[in-house]
């Protein structure tokens, strides 16, 4: 299974602090994607990191990937109340997986104003 397991299950921080979420998976991947979901709404794609990349940045987001440890981390710097959401990682084998993503339970991030 390509399911990612996010850790911690819940994270509560103050506005302005950094938030770090981790993802572990069990099999080889072609890429790993991170998504955000605001309460009751659809998922929003944040960033895709390929297996030959070690780090990727997008605005206040920094994603790292360690394929030897089969793990990834998502860092949100200078968090805002609007970052309050659930965050999911999706390891993807590519190829014949035909776009099937397997999500874990996610990390619920709460940013207090």
């Amino acid at each position: 299974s390509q399911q990612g397991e996010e850790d911690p299950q819940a994270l509560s921080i103050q506005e302005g602090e950094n938030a770090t979420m981790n993802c572990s998976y069990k099999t080889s991947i072609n890429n790993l994607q991170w998504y955000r979901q605001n309460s009751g709404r659809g998922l929003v794609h944040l960033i895709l990191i390929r297996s030959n990349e070690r780090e990727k940045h997008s605005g206040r987001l920094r994603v790292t990937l360690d394929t030897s440890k089969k793990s990834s981390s998502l860092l949100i710097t200078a968090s805002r109340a609007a970052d309050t959401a659930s965050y999911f990682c999706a390891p993807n084998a590519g190829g014949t997986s035909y776009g099937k993503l397997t999500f874990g339970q996610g990390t619920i991030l709460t940013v207090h104003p």
Partner: protein
Amino acid sequence: DAGVTQSPTHLIKTRGQQVTLRCSPISGHKSVSWYQQVLGQGPQFIFQYYEKEERGRGNFPDRFSARQFPNYSSELNVNALLLGDSALYLCASSLRQDVSPLHFGNGTRLTVT
């Protein structure tokens, strides 16, 4: 450009009934996937369609079926509804069928009583 649109947004059905959910992908996207998200869990993959053909199926019973139309819109049908089918049903489109990031709609909230 419009994002992924799903209809209806909310639906209440009785056990044993049948339901049809609809999805319009982003213009130019040929791949549509369906996901089921039970409260407190991550989305679970149901189907992927690309160029009107089924390209992937998750671990769901035959009561679940789907199709994709020539304009790339899609329908998800669920027969003989069970209480456990109550969930948020998400549709996602992507440009290609492989590793393209998924663009999700805001879902249809189905309640089975």
